[in-house]
């Protein structure tokens, strides 16, 4: 049995952070190998060293039996190792073919040979099953198509060993199935595939063998045939974990009272009827006038209403409009008995709207602020004496939140930037769930990029909020998460809620087609 990749004793340090220590990996030629681990376990770092983006500080790296430790990306590509990144690296104003040949454009005389490039791309697409029209502009492609182009790009450069970093994060279930088909074709053709993921069901479905990483270290290696999602999870976290799939809505937890009490708890009286009511809400984006096209939702206190769907179907705009971050074109938003359609962000928040935003790095945290300062973002007007900030209360507030949510490392003056993704999210959630009074919570992708242990904790917190009578509007691209948490589930497609079902009638099989716009005639 030949090894495509062999890494031993790899160590990599970035500044203060040890990303890899004693990491190892063995991938056989012709297999699909999954690398799993919590966020920040060092999976991407290890892969990037294999692709030549960084040189390891210690350890050796072999590809195809040849020692290649510390090689360059150019050498890696020449040796047939290609990496498909989590974030797409394509030029949107160029066509598919132009993107693929970039850097090695075919020419006829001094002219760019467009027809030749398109023909080459089309031929490659036929061979691999990755069909995309080479003459289309990248800016016109859907997310699934973009990913196909990224994979094509790597294959076009002659890759025989393909490394994919979290390839399914933005795909709908049918698109994931398409991807699996392509990967299986590649392997059948003699290629080798390494997939980084933290979705355990995917691991079991697609891979032949698994490497588990924790805290920068390789902690295990197993054959997929002998693994189950919970055995993998146990190895990833180092202890027993409840997976979202296995959970039920029981286990009521008392909300601990604490934190800043609102002087004006207008939200309190709002629980009589609906907690949040959207009426024919239409919201424009830069791209189109009806990014959200007439959405109506009535959210009751004590329920989690989940919105599933492939990203880019108006979810972002819908939530931003509710939070006051984006103007509403028509329709109305009621928070309890208040019409908040034209209210400012602060007025809405003070009236009882809490918001775990989609992108904690862009919106949810000021990364260069200390944890203590980030824990008052949005409620800073409650932490003042006159016009001066009340340092003492800010620090004691931080101490409480850090303890309640087990943020690590727990120094209140450490910059938020220095925390891992899961701990950053805990800071956001601590602030939004305990740092203020609220009646409605908008939770968008609450567990994205968060490790398995923290996911469990965050799900608990959302359920606890629901059980305490809060209304939760959950938006997630992770269908499993939506199904595990929600009392009612809707699918958003093309700016509309195309189907709404009670939780017991919803399943991946029922909702999947709706997410691609191929929904049946049932539902609604």
């Amino acid at each position: 049995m030949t090894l495509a990749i062999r890494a031993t004793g790899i160590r990599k340090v970035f500044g203060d952070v040890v990303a890899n220590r004693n990491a190892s990996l063995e991938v056989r030629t012709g297999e699909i190998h999954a690398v799993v681990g919590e966020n920040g376990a060092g999976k991407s770092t290890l892969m990037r060293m294999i692709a030549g983006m960084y040189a390891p500080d210690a350890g050796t790296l072999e590809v195809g039996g040849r020692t290649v430790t510390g090689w360059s990306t150019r050498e890696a590509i020449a040796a047939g190792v290609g990496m498909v990144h989590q974030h797409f690296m394509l030029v949107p104003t160029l066509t598919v073919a132009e993107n693929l040949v970039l850097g090695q454009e075919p020419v006829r005389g001094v002219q760019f040979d467009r027809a030749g490039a398109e023909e080459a791309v089309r031929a490659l697409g036929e061979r691999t099953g990755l069909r995309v029209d080479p003459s289309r502009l990248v800016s016109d492609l859907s997310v699934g198509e973009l990913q196909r182009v990224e994979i094509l790009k790597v294959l076009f450069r002659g890759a025989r060993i393909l490394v994919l970093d979290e390839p399914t994060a933005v795909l709908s279930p049918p698109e994931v199935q398409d991807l699996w088909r392509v990967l299986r074709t590649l392997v059948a053709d003699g290629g080798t595939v390494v997939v980084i993921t933290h979705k355990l069901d995917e691991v079991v479905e697609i891979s032949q063998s698994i490497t588990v990483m924790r805290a920068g270290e390789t902690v295990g290696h197993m054959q997929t045939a002998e693994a189950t999602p919970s055995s993998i999870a146990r190895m990833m976290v180092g202890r027993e974990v409840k997976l979202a799939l296995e959970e039920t809505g029981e286990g009521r937890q008392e909300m601990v009272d604490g934190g800043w009490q609102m002087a004006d708890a207008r939200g309190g009286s709002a629980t009589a009827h609906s907690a949040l009511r959207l009426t024919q809400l239409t919201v424009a984006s830069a791209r189109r006038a009806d990014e959200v096209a007439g959405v109506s939702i009535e959210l009751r206190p004590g329920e989690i209403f989940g919105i599933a769907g492939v990203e880019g179907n108006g979810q972002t705009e819908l939530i931003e409009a509710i939070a006051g971050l984006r103007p509403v074109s028509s329709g109305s938003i009621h928070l309890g008995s208040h019409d908040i359609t034209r209210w400012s962000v602060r007025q809405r928040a003070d009236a009882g709207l809490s918001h775990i935003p989609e992108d904690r790095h862009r919106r949810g945290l000021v990364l260069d602020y200390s944890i203590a300062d980030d824990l008052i973002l949005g409620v800073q007007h409650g932490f003042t004496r006159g016009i001066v900030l009340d340092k003492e209360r800010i620090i004691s507030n931080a101490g409480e939140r850090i303890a309640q949510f087990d943020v690590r490392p727990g120094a209140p003056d450490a910059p938020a930037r220095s925390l891992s993704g899961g701990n950053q999210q805990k800071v956001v959630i601590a602030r939004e769930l305990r740092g203020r009074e609220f009646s409605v919570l908008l939770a968008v992708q609450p567990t994205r990029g968060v490790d398995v242990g923290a996911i469990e904790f965050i799900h608990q917190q959302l359920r606890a909020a629901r059980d305490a009578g809060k209304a939760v509007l959950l938006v997630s691209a992770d269908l499993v998460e939506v199904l595990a948490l929600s009392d009612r589930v809707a699918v958003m497609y093309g700016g509309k809620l195309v189907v709404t079902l009670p939780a017991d009638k919803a399943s991946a099989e029922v909702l999947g087609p709706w997410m691609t716009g191929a929904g049946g005639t049932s539902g609604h």
Partner: protein
Amino acid sequence: MATDRAPAVSPPGIPRWLQPLLPPLTALLIAAVVGDLLILTFGQSPREVFRLLIEGTWGNAYGLGQVLYKATTLICTGLAVALGIRAGMFNIGAEGQLALGGFAAAAIGLLLPAGTPALVAIPVCVAAACAGGSAGAAVPGVLKARFGASEVIVTIMMNFIIAALLNWAVATQLNVAESLHTPEIHAGAVPRLAAVSALFSGSAANFTILFALGAAVFTGWWLFRTRAGYELRAAGLQPDAAEYGGIRVGSVWLRTMLLSGALAGLGGVNYVLGYKQYYEEGFAAGAGYLGIAVALVGRNHPAGVVISALLFATLSQGALAVNALVPKQMVDVLTAIVIIAVATAVPEVERLLRAVRGKTA
């Protein structure tokens, strides 16, 4: 959590307190070395030139006073630029705002009846200077907050507009025959430091430096202690997060621009009330632009701004002292080298410091 954080070890041999100072000091060292080479090309001894430079500035009463005088204006414009950058704005208009502040102080000083007590006149004139600077910054502030217009372009344009308007005002409205300046003010003169201490005799240094230092303390307090400062820095670091936190970023920008203009305008007091007692065309020439360098070298921190203003003032005054040995433009070149060295060396040294810390982990 998943990734280990190495214990915060200092690079060996470098005390903790020194570390934040290391990058700018390295930059200055580089500038000094390049300066030496330049001096050598003129066939002069670098030691001799630097000795003259220090002697002509910190070495005697007049030189010291002049350094403090020049630093006063630079502190004000440096603070103006630094405050803007903290909010995510590049105020290149300190030049014009400074001129407008000086003119406003002169005009109000002229309007006040002679014999107005200093305790009334000085605050009124200082307020006028700040208001003048603010007025100059209001246009770019409103255009940015309301329409998202680039403050860089608008402030540069405003510099020309303000200069032209002031020339017109001095030429036609408040002119003293045969001169480019306004009549002397009737009240509001700020006393010279030389009046209280022989340490500064003969220099233009005046009590405006206390206002400037007060402004630096105020700016530090405003930025790091108040809720407004919290919101200002959030808007500067991450406008999207600030917006999410209920902060109206546009109005933060407008308010910051007005405050920034007021700080620049305050610098006008130095010349108009403290030195000449009139507004003269071109008194601000370069001080606003140099404020950008002052803020850059001072790392946009009020304390850093004060120190770097003193540095640039020393270089500027020192140029006159070394004129006998090397052309005084040499010092302009040296100033430019300091700026380039800070802009390039500081991030590099910071990267190195981080790398060293990583290695010792």
